[in-house]
């Protein structure tokens, strides 16, 4: 395939992915918006007004970046895991496997699809947050870079999960038992400075903590963690996961018998 054909193939996968999540918007776009409205009403306004400030910010302004990041993470991940596994389950992944599309284009196409949904939902949640509170942006480059890198990383992770999954339970185990606890314990709702030394040290092993804090720094200039660490960790993890996913596709693991 020449470069133009590769571009057409990439664009085709991306267009198909966007068409998929737009077609089923009541399943893909509406639920995170409703969930986030509840978070903003309950944690931001009802309980938040009694909590007062967190790290010097009104509580609703403290949780808003975390909630935006949470929706980016879960939607990037779930878009790729459900779309890729759905293709495997229906066997229409074979349409791609019999075509001359290189594996790295397949990978990039699915990642871009996941990022489109993750970032799209992120924008919707940001608009919602602005309805409930107001905030500026402390650093545009940091905000954009960390949200893009996080979405990228979780899109790749979703694809790896889908490759290994052999039934629908397998694609809900990681989001339910790994991603959700890590997100809730990842500094979305509280500053880790509130924790004792032991739990603070344990929290440092949670990758989502780094992403949430870097994003919060981009929005409000406040962070519990050095954002250089955040970028290094997310960057390194993305590269490792990308290479691993590519290796799985090249090997045809669980895709070619």
């Amino acid at each position: 395939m020449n470069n133009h054909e590769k571009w057409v193939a990439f664009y085709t996968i991306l267009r198909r992915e966007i068409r998929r999540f737009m077609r089923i918007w009541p399943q893909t776009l509406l639920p995170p918006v409703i969930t986030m409205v509840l978070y903003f009403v309950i944690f931001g306004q009802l309980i938040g007004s009694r909590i007062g400030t967190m790290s010097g910010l009104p509580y609703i302004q403290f949780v808003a970046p975390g909630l935006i990041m949470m929706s980016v993470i879960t939607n990037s991940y779930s878009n790729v895991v459900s779309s890729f596994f759905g293709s495997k389950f229906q066997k229409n992944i074979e349409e791609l496997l019999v075509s001359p599309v290189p594996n790295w284009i397949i990978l990039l196409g699915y990642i871009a699809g996941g990022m489109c949904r993750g970032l799209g939902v992120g924008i919707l949640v940001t608009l919602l947050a602005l309805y409930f509170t107001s905030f500026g942006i402390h650093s545009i480059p940091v905000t954009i870079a960390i949200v893009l890198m996080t979405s990228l990383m979780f899109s790749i992770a979703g694809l790896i999960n889908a490759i290994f999954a052999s039934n629908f339970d397998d694609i809900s185990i990681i989001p339910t038992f790994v991603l959700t606890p890590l997100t809730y314990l990842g500094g979305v709702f509280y500053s880790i400075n509130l924790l004792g030394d032991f739990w603070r040290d344990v929290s440092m092993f949670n990758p989502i903590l780094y992403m949430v804090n870097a994003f919060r720094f981009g929005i409000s200039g406040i962070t519990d963690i050095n954002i250089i660490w955040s970028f290094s960790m997310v960057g390194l993890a993305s590269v490792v996961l990308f290479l691993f996913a590519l290796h799985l596709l090249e090997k045809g693991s669980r895709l070619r018998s």
Partner: protein
Amino acid sequence: METPALSIHNLTKVYEDSFKALESISLNVKKGDFFALLGPNGAGKSTTIGIICSLVRKTEGKVSIFQYDVDTDFSTAKHLIGVVPQEFNFNQFEKPIDILVTQAGYFGITSDIASKRAEKYLKQLGLWEKRNDFSRNLSGGMKRRLMIARALIHEPKLLILDEPTAGVDIELRRSMWNFLTEINKSGTTIILTTHYLEEAESLCRNIAIIDHGKIIENTSMKSLLKKLDKETFVFDLAQEISVCPKIKGYSITLSDQNQLEVEIPKSESLNGLFAEFSKQKLSIVSMRNKTNRLEELFIGMVEKNLESEKIRDE
């Protein structure tokens, strides 16, 4: 020597559970051929097709499409093949037009060109009116035709069809045969697997029979049919009889009071048989082949292979 459309050399496939699906098979399919790959269930046909289109990883051997190796020149090789699998493997929630345009995109074909081709093939296969329906709502025959259209969208030079007419009614089957014959006449090499041996006999010029992972026959359809040393005919009689007639050189059974089954060796003629019927004052109303000729040969070969496998195992 002309470049073969497909060249398979010493192809072996052993699955993870140690099942040997293919044992060092070699096969050449000529450019422009209409080729039948036959075999009983589990013989290795779908594994062979899977390896050709890279859905199955081979254990050993070499596969080339118009001399392009599927491992080293995979991009060129894949551009040259179109595959219609046995099972429906398109997204049931997408529309036929989107399925075709998307598939073309995977081959680097832009959507404006793909849309024109999709219109052409959907019209030729009688699916144009259904282009915007969800594909899960199509009938079984329509789904099969959609898969043929999808396989043709990048205009491959080699089209491989794995039981394309399974579950399709006879009228539709015949219209699909006409379509495939036209595609073949326009220069596309076709490899067909089917359980309808009448289909293979009427469409294909060359044939390979695969059984237990080995090629047990690879020849032209004409040469194969010449190997048939006897044929069984069914004769409907005008009158009812109770005793089976005896005619020298022919094996006759009375299957019904007014129906005879006669095994006619290649050395004997139908004229001789009719002469004997006249002598015995038997009046024939109609006659037909008991089974398709190829079917008779196929069953004989597979049974013979099964016996030799048993002897070898003992």
